[in-house]
């Protein structure tokens, strides 16, 4: 073989090696569709979701506060309340649950109904689900309560899973309707 042929063979071999390395090495961690957004906030989203997914994998649980804005994926007010809670402003509010290995999860939300402009706090019925699949319904007591539910592994995927909270109760007031205090996620099998 002359030199040109040797270079040719090595080059094709390198192409194949690169493609194989990509096929094997690329992580199948799925991300939701994101719009442009503000640079530092996006970077925080990518790093924080991975950190939490690893934490869940290593310790079997994690807890997040609404101060960690990456948690909120749409339908929430840009600003937090003085009590550091997130306010749902749209009828469907979404949150991120990052997962490395799909496993049965137990999720807990601390929720409080926000009273309308003119009126007192009252119970609110909401539908909750993950990745577009309804899991159940929950009536949030007027003075707040904890939504506790289990997600089967079949509903999860490796990546950023999206939990939604959809207000079933009709309300004429266009203002915030629900306040989120914290979110706990843990692997269900580790729950005693």
């Amino acid at each position: 073989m002359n030199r040109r042929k040797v270079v040719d063979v090595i080059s094709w071999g390198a192409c194949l090696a690169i493609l194989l390395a990509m096929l094997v090495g690329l992580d199948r961690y799925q991300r939701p569709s994101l719009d442009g957004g503000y640079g530092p906030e996006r970077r925080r989203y990518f790093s924080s979701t991975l950190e939490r997914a690893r934490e869940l994998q290593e310790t079997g649980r994690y807890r997040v506060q609404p101060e960690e804005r990456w948690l909120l994926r749409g339908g929430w007010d840009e600003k937090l309340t003085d009590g550091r809670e997130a306010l749902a402003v749209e009828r469907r509010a979404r949150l991120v649950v990052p997962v490395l290995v799909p496993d049965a999860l137990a999720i807990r939300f601390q929720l409080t109904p926000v009273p309308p402009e003119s009126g007192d706090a009252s119970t609110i019925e909401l539908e909750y689900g993950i990745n577009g699949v309804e899991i159940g319904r929950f009536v949030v007591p007027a003075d707040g309560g904890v939504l506790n539910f289990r997600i089967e592994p079949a509903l999860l995927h490796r990546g950023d899973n999206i939990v939604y909270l959809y207000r079933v109760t009709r309300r004429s007031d266009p203002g915030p309707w629900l306040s989120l205090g914290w979110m706990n996620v843990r692997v269900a099998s580790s729950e005693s």
Partner: protein
Amino acid sequence: MTSSPESRSHHTTLGQLLVAFLVALAGLTVTLLPLPGVVSVDEAPGLDAHIYVAMAEAPTVFTMPPYAYRPGVPWLAHLLPFSLEINFFLLTCIGLLATLTLAYVLFRQLGYSHGLALLGLSFVAASPEVTVFLTNHFLVDPLALALMTAVLIAIERSESAGPTALLLLLASLFKETAFFVIPVLYLRLAGTRLVDSRAAWRVLLISSPAVAAALLLRFAWGGVFDAFPYLSPWEGHRQSWFGNMEAYQTIWSGLFGYLALIAIANAFAERWRNFVRCYLPFAALVIAQLLVPQNSERLLFFAFPAVIPLALAEFQRIRDELPEWFPLLTALLVFCYVFLPAQLVPPMALVILARILIGRRRTVGETG
């Protein structure tokens, strides 16, 4: 592959290459001196920089399109041993240095002498976009452009399929703009024919690894599939072009100022007809980027392999036909390029003056 139509392509010696490298290094150093140098990630402007940094932090995990489809620079930044800021800065400097040196090699390959190729290198080095890349050094463009230039050199040198395919694959992993060279590859292979099935099959063979990598990144990775993951012309805020002189000046600066006008004037010359035929689709694709993303003016920098060689033809004409005027006119034109980048009248007046002098000299020569 068919040979380059610019049959006067020159062999570059190692000494000449070293000179070109030193000129590129000097040009970059001069540009870099007044700049802040390495800036922290938090000071990085724009969305792109932060996404590339996120990619460097977790290189195998998908982020968001279209940035995630350009993993080359973030992967390298992850591998280098320093902090991410320094790594990105080093990669930008290496990318620009390689682009400038390879630009010299490309100009030589297209038939220009050592001096004119160095002049072309200097025009690329003095472009305002070099400052943009050195200021925001978290971008992937410099290394992507260097690899794209390497692919063009491989095409012009009629390299065999394997090395060209490997270079195209690597370039495509740095930025999808690498695919803009495919029409050049086809047209160089097809020679004077517009439809050539053999050339088409060869292009398919050479581009298949890069296409496979692109499909792998888009369909086998963890990201969502967005059919067209770029901003459409009607999306996002952009300055209006119609009646906006500032917008035109920005575009002209991005397209190497008055050199673009000279390039257009020379595109009609007989000697460059084949070059224009091959590089016109490439130039059109680069300029078409103006219609898609924001901050796209800096992407016009990718047009240098089409614009600068055609502009250098004017300097070659002056050197060949007005040798005694060449140093003065070139010095004045370089002055205009560096210090009056948005002005078109003074440099074009000089070019017109040179053409008048050349015309008169020819007339005198013919009558005498």
